[in-house]
């Protein structure tokens, strides 16, 4: 009876929430108060796919949903990204019959990496995709090994793990897990690989298992690559799903040596998100033609890249999570890889949209030296933390005469409106991007 009440309450609140445009975790929160064990009592679909990791969750879930739908599956997923237990409860209960049976063939969940253990206390995923573990929001997450331990508590023996073979830390989830229930995706050595590590810190320098010195035959970016530890033998696993060729400049990717994909967004991130989505959809039985049809030239709807006009400038905003140096580094690499002369505007004004912090240590983990690339004519550092940014640049290699510093984002926008016509790349976070876009015309 309590379950029926919880389902009804959830549906009603969701409906009202939809009318007033309110968040998606409140209905689930109330429903769980009425029936705390609701998630353990509903009958779930045969496939439950969870996606977690530091970066790429939302994009991976979006592409996975699109592929599964094209493959004829009925998919229920949290497209709003409400990824803690209350949001998951809203999703599941509002898609249940009064008899407590969830509709759909697949339940697909983006799951917050620190809270997955609370959600999966009630039911266990059939497939668990872990995209990667990087330094991310250390002000809330502690550090990557701390997050590893939190995710580890959400892993159960019957779940098939879908892991990034190129990430030495998240690969450790396979330790102690039935090897038949671990599937691996990764990138072969290719045009973007280097022999030397790039970036200002190296989280793969030490083996996550024994802290011995790790060896790499190649790096794709940051600590992602082909590694092995001579001391304990922890090494990159052979892949079940591989990017066998990649040309990021041309935007071409080959999967398993046989399927060519054109990339709508030529970023290494996109490649890993595609690989993760491809792997789990293949495991769910979607055939490769259907998968390729969706993924080819796929434009993400959750738009981390926004184009706009500012005066005579063409603007490209690359959303880069503050407190996440890998996100910044990949976007800076994207800019450095372009050919036309450009201005880069970096904005750090509010470090988070959810909480106050004055913590700027993460700026020192970002490889801003990528902006010494000759096509970058000017770097503008703006926002409340412009001085922290300016100090950081004083310790880098971008020539001082290219760097401009100011607090007011409006002033930066007005200046650009009235001067010049070169491309403008804006590198900033969700918390700050509208402060610039308010002055621009959207494309």
């Amino acid at each position, binding site marked *: 009876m309590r379950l029926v009440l919880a389902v009804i309450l959830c549906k009603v609140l969701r409906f009202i929430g939809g009318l007033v445009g309110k968040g998606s975790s409140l209905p689930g929160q109330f429903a769980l108060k009425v029936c705390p064990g609701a998630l353990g009592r509903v009958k779930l679909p045969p496939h439950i796919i969870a996606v977690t990791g530091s970066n790429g969750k939302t994009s991976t879930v979006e592409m996975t949903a699109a592929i599964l739908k094209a493959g004829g599956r009925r998919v229920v997923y949290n497209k709003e990204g409400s990824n803690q237990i209350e949001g998951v409860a809203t999703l599941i209960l509002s898609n249940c019959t009064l008899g407590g049976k969830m509709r759909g063939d697949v339940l697909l969940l983006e799951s917050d990496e620190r809270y997955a253990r609370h959600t999966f206390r009630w039911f266990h995923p059939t497939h668990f995709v872990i995209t990667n573990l990087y330094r991310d929001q250390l002000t809330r997450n502690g550090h990557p*090994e*701390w997050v590893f331990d939190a995710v580890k508590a959400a892993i159960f023996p019957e779940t098939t793990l879908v892991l990034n073979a190129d990430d030495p830390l998240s690969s450790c989830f396979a330790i102690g897990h039935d090897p038949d229930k671990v599937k691996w995706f990764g990138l072969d050595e290719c045009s973007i690989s280097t022999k030397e590590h790039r970036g200002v810190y190296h989280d793969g*320098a030490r083996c996550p298992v024994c802290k011995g010195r790790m060896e790499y035959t190649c790096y794709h970016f940051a600590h992602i690559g082909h590694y092995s530890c001579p001391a304990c033998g922890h090494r990159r696993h052979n892949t079940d799903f591989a990017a066998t060729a990649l040309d990021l400049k041309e935007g071409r990717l080959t999967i398993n040596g046989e399927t060519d994909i054109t990339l709508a967004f030529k970023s290494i991130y996109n490649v890993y998100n595609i690989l993760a989505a491809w792997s789990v959809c293949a495991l769910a039985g979607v055939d490769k033609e259907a998968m390729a049809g969706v993924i080819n030239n796929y434009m993400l709807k959750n738009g981390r890249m926004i184009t706009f006009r500012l005066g005579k400038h063409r603007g490209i905003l690359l959303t880069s999570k503050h407190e996440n140096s890998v996100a910044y580094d990949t976007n800076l690499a994207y800019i450095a890889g372009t050919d036309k002369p450009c201005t880069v505007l970096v904005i750090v004004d509010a470090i988070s949209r959810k909480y106050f912090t004055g913590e*700027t240590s993460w700026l*020192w983990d970002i490889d801003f030296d990528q902006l010494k690339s000759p096509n970058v004519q000017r770097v503008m550092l703006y926002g409340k933390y412009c*001085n922290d940014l300016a100090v950081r640049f004083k310790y880098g290699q971008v020539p001082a005469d290219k760097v401009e510093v100011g607090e007011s984002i409006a002033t930066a926008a007005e200046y650009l409106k009235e001067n010049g016509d070169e491309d403008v790349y804006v590198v900033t976070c969700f918390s700050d991007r509208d402060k610039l876009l308010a002055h621009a015309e959207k494309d």
Partner: protein
Amino acid sequence: MELTILHLYPDCMSLYGEYANVAVLRRHLEAMGVSVTVDTTLFEDTPDFAHADFIYMGAGTERTQKAALTALLPHKEALRAAIDRGAVVLFTGNAMELLGASVTDAAGRVWPCLAFADFTTEEHDSREPVDVLACSDLLPGWVVGFMNKCSETHGVDTPLIQHVEQGVGNEGNAAEPEGYVSGNVFATHITGPVLVKNPDFTDFLIRRIFELKGWPAPEALPALPYEREAYEATVRGLAGPRCAGG
């Protein structure tokens, strides 16, 4: 004027951009005409404490901290000799814990440490990342930064910071003393580029290094662009109307 900075385990005990502490100290010393050599030590190496004027270690994950301890313990006497000679030492984040008698991890295992002081540390399975605003008798204004600890340290008799206004002190509560100081050894659980964020602390350490070297005390220390402005913006953000001083 020449000096050597020894950076312990920079490949892994630098969890929050802490390599910048060495970079900022070096830049300031060079601006004063000092020729600086930075010597780095990995777990597999024997640290050259005998020639070090300034010794630095930053924070690591809990597991990496234990590996750093294992690597450093065999060289304890050489480090003690450097400290006795007056070498200036700065340990930040959980590197601070290694100076004490022991660390007890969340599973209950006791790890004997360097035992240069009597304090002991206990780790938990929860952590409290938090902004820090604090006062130290050694420094003129607020000390600012960030703390990301999952431990409590008990038995520090000589803290570096007398009062933590925001953040947590050694024993895990607000309004407590924090860190450790003894002679030229300085330690704080504040993580990240502490010296970038606190120009007064950088200046203070430079004066100590000059004393150690027997060089004439500098009259004025270099103020490099944007550093004071960044510090003041952080203080304004954290202290708000209280920003008159520590």
